[in-house]
């Protein structure tokens, strides 16, 4: 694998030469030679656990290789810390955003390398000016007041932009983007693409990691596929197609289509909302939403970030009491004033941000799954462990969770399997309605298709599923019926296979509704 680099149009700026990384007995990277070329988008592809993130951590100085070397512009580098890497012009935007919530946008942009004036004081005027410029360049012009807001008040999409601004402001030569669009809406992703192309034109070497194939095909100049810690394919733009990527990634053909459920018109409605309103400080976040989900039906809500889909899900899960409107489950009116009320009514939610709202990182896989159902499996206050484990095992099989040992901490699992753990916890309560907010965020292609398949099976057994998504492809693959949300309202409704991407996108864009 350490043969000399093939001659391509762009020259190599940084490369790893025969790098191996071991954690204890596990080999995360095995003799990897990965080349990053100047002024181009270098796509790194692989399933979760293939070693992409480890490789990027090596390049970003967050970890050191067990053996092998990293060379930049012909010179060998010894990156001991993220600081070292930053000094050499290597910047990384992490998948789990590394934004400091309590610091302002400006302070985040310059965190770790503050601009100082004489006497070692922070030069706030210059920082404000430069961060303002960087944010504008990223399509997010902010005034002074906004730049001084704590970053925790921003949405995930905006935090991402802040991280990008950080790398821009330090004049990075190599910019690593680890799943940059997993938290972004379609329009935010598009502005990100523009930025990436702009950076590339300026000679920055971009390393791009994503599970969204259409992005990779759109942006990528050079493609490298990792599988089980080894490089299994390298190619360049124009020489490959989706099938090439998918086959190398998984080492086998991947099933991406799911047969749609033929919806019987007489399907009894399980969940029914009429005129649901939920206000966020006076402004309606959910505005007069009526919808119904039938028994065994999968209904998708497509919408951009901030369209009210999360608020709708939270209203149904009992996290925010609706201000107006009525919710019926199996024809019986329910008052959703708390999570336990929603659960009693048979509604359970798998939240959008599984790291923050879903998983208990210190607990084991089994404990995470059974967490919400302990009362059900207890007799006189004593937990029946055998019963619990039996049910957990059943769910693990049903959801195809791949785990060596269910007593390992949940953090030992890949993103896809972690998401399945969250699903398993919801299902353990045997809900009649399952709510999913972005069911496959940060999940690789194969785990995605497995999750879709499982959800279809569950629906066939009579479970009603209501999910939200900002991915058109996901909505298309999973939903029997699609509702489009914009500005808190249901803007359109489509039956499966009766819409084009443009239909969805147009209905979801708030711009199209201005003045309407």
């Amino acid at each position: 694998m350490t043969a000399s680099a093939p001659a391509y149009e762009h020259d190599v700026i940084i490369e790893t030469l025969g790098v191996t990384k071991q954690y204890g007995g596990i080999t995360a990277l095995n003799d990897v030679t990965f080349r990053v070329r100047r002024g181009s988008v270098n796509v790194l592809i692989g399933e979760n656990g293939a070693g992409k993130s480890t490789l990027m951590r090596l390049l970003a100085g967050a970890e050191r290789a067990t053996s092998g070397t990293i060379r930049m512009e012909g010179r060998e580098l010894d990156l001991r810390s993220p600081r070292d890497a930053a000094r050499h012009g290597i910047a990384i935007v992490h998948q789990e955003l590394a934004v400091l919530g309590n610091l302002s946008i400006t302070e985040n942009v310059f965190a770790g390398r503050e601009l100082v004036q004489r006497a070692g004081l922070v030069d706030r005027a210059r920082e404000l000016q430069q961060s303002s410029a960087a944010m504008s360049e990223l399509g997010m012009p902010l005034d002074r007041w906004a730049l001084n807001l704590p970053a925790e008040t921003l949405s995930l999409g905006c935090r991402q932009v802040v991280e990008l601004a950080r790398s821009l402001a330090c004049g990075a030569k190599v910019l690593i983007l680890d799943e940059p669009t997993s938290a972004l809406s379609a329009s935010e992703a598009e502005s990100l693409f523009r930025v990436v192309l702009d950076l590339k034109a300026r000679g920055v070497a971009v390393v791009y990691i994503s599970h969204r194939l259409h992005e990779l095909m759109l942006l990528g100049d050079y493609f490298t596929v990792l599988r089980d810690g080894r490089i299994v394919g390298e190619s360049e733009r124009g020489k490959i197609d989706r099938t090439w990527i998918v086959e190398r990634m998984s080492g086998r053909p991947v099933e991406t289509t799911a047969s749609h459920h033929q919806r019987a018109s007489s399907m009894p409605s399980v969940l029914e909302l009429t005129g649901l309103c939920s206000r966020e400080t006076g402004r309606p976040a959910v505005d007069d939403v009526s919808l119904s989900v039938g028994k065994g039906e999968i209904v998708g809500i497509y919408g951009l970030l901030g369209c009210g889909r999360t608020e709708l899900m939270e209203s149904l899960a009992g996290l925010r009491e609706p201000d107006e409107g009525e919710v019926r489950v199996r024809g019986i009116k329910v008052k959703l004033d708390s999570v336990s009320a929603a659960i009693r009514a048979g509604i359970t939610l798998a939240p959008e941000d599984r790291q923050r709202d879903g998983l208990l990182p210190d607990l084991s896989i089994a404990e995470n799954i059974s967490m919400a159902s302990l009362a059900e499996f207890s007799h006189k206050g004593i937990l029946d462990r055998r019963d619990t484990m039996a049910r957990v095992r059943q769910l693990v099989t049903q959801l195809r969770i791949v785990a060596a040992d269910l007593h390992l901490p949940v953090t030992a699992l890949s993103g896809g399997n972690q998401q399945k753990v969250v699903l398993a916890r919801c299902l353990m309560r045997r809900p009649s309605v399952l709510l999913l907010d972005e069911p496959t965020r940060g999940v690789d292609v194969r785990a995605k298709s497995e999750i879709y398949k499982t959800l279809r099976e569950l629906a066939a057994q009579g479970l009603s599923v209501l999910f939200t998504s900002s991915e058109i492809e996901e909505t298309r693959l999973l939903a029997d019926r699609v509702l489009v949300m914009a500005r808190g309202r249901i803007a359109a409704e489509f039956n499966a296979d009766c819409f084009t991407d443009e239909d969805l996108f147009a209905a979801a864009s708030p711009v199209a509704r201005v003045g309407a």
Partner: protein
Amino acid sequence: MRSWGWADVVLLLLKLRALVVLVALLVLFTALTPTFLTTNNLSILAKHVSINALLAVGMTFVVITAGIDLSVGSIAGLAGMVAGGLLTVGIGGHVAPAWLAVIVALLVSASVGWLNGIMVTRLGVAPFIATLGTLYIARGAALLLSNGRTFPDLAGTAARGNTGFTAIGQSFILRVPTPVWMMVVIAAATAFVAIRTPFGRHVYAVGGNERAARLAGIRVERVIVWTYVFSALCAGLVGMIIASQLEAAHPATGESFELNAIAAVVLGGTSLMGGRGTVGGSLIGACVIGVLADGLVMMGVSEFWQMVIKGLVIVGAVTVDQMQMKVQARMMPALLRSRSKITKVPM
């Protein structure tokens, strides 16, 4: 300039609530006891406040990094004993001049702080436990220095060349006690460091999200170690102020001072979860505790009731703190919409 909305006023009042409480207490005690607002009483009050305020200001950075320093009281005791021992007994019959005693005592204090920092960062000991350990270690060391006895006569004599130590706690500058000046200067300098230097910003970053701070290239360990060293230095200074005022170093000096300091920090709005807090808040917190104690004494409230009231004030303050966070979180979207010119990206 922007116009001020109702939301800003509510937020500002909530933010400044410690100050509001302080002013309310001052008004209350002035109205209830005629002798409260006298130069004499205020001078005594300021001296008392300065002790706790120095400890609280020193500990603020530690608490912002989501740590805690239980050892400050013991460090104060140890510093007083080291200085007192060098001044009066000395080493091998040679007594040290006041300036040398002060420097050595500060160095000893700093090294205890450094030990705290090393335990927290390199050895991974939880701050509560690490500083609980040094609380005992430093107190034990203070007792060992004199076998539990007091070092008297710190005023010194010209003949032995050990005078001047009493100036620390007893002198006046512009008719204001020197310890009060120390409190003001150190608090101002610390607040300045917090706001205007990279170090200050790193302290907030580490407390907000240690992992993210590390990924941003901040030297997390170094920052944390320095916060403990600074806290210990302030504690050492306090120990010497007390020894200087009493003209004697007693090994039990500073017992349970750490609790008052933590109370002041928390009253000032610094979150024990880290990432949030101000030096000015800690200063005001120390003033609230001091004024409350002083005023209640002057009103003749029993010592036992004083403790009950102090406890209620602390718990009440933190309750309001939680309410502020909730109100702020709820008003933020409205503020964002009305105030920001964000054009493209929804927030």
